[in-house]
């Protein structure tokens, strides 16, 4: 690579108008030993960039195997089914109890009603007796 060109590229480089390819030419040029004296001061810069690119990340990253997410959702679903089950189960039970209580009350009430009927029958006898008694009194 002729010197002229390199000097032009350097100028472009410092104005940041060189392309990536042109910068690559500079890096390659300054990686070599035989750089003219007046350009030598730029050499470390380009060598540094090439060197900096060789640095590697060597640390191990502990990647935990991820839990499958659907297990989480299944448990959520199971819990909600359980809660709803308990809720509806209870209300069903209550309804049955209420029905039973209603039937019992009805039975008790009808028992009471029939006994009340018996009572009025007896009262009817009593009236008969009363009427006869009145008749007897009136005769006297």
């Amino acid at each position, binding site marked *: 690579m002729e010197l002229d060109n390199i000097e032009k590229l350097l100028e472009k*480089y*410092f*104005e*940041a*108008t060189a392309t*990536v390819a042109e*910068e*690559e030419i500079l890096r390659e040029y300054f990686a070599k030993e035989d750089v003219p004296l007046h350009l030598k*001061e*730029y050499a*470390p*810069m380009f*060598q*540094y*960039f090439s*060197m*900096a*690119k*060789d*640095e*590697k*990340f060597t*640390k191990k*990253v502990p*990647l935990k*195997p*991820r839990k499958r997410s659907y297990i989480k959702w299944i448990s959520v679903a199971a819990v909600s089914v359980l809660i709803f089950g308990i809720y509806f189960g209870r209300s069903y039970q209550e309804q049955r109890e209420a029905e039973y209580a209603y039937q019992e009350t009805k039975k008790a009430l009808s028992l009471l009603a029939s006994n009340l009927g018996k009572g009025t029958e007896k009262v009817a006898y009593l009236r008969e007796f009363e009427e006869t008694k009145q008749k007897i009194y009136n005769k006297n």
Partner: protein
Amino acid sequence: MQQTEFLNVVLPFKDKLYRLAKRLLVSKEEAEDATQEILLKLWSKNSMMEGYSNVEAYAMMMTKNFCLDRLKSKQAGNLKLVHSNYKDENVSLQNQLEVSDSLSWIERIMEELPEQQKMVIQLRDVEQYEFEEIAELLDMSATAVRVTLSRARKTVREKLVQKHNYGIG
């Protein structure tokens, strides 16, 4: 996505993440921790990752944000980043001693650059990203990237020339 598959996706750019983190955080340990954190984050939402067309850009952006947050919280806590890796272990040959010395000098110059310039010069000169990619990553216009890069390169050159003239090396 399974573990091996994930590693295959991540493998081509995990070093880039690390180098960007190291450029910003300077300390090797901090940078390793940051990279690890980013990779774990990626792994934890890797079902989403398949939706991203450019995982690398996404990961780079995550790294950038993570490191900047890190630096901010360090600053707020009035803590200085401690690092012990000024010496570069890569070049150990005797005849390269002088070279390696000026290389570590450049590393120090780079450390003094503002964060924005650090990132731009890292992405361009080390990773060879196009201006458009850098602009998108850093949320800047392409022109602003150009200006920042030019400024950063000139600063490095200036300091390097200064050092040469003083003949410290």
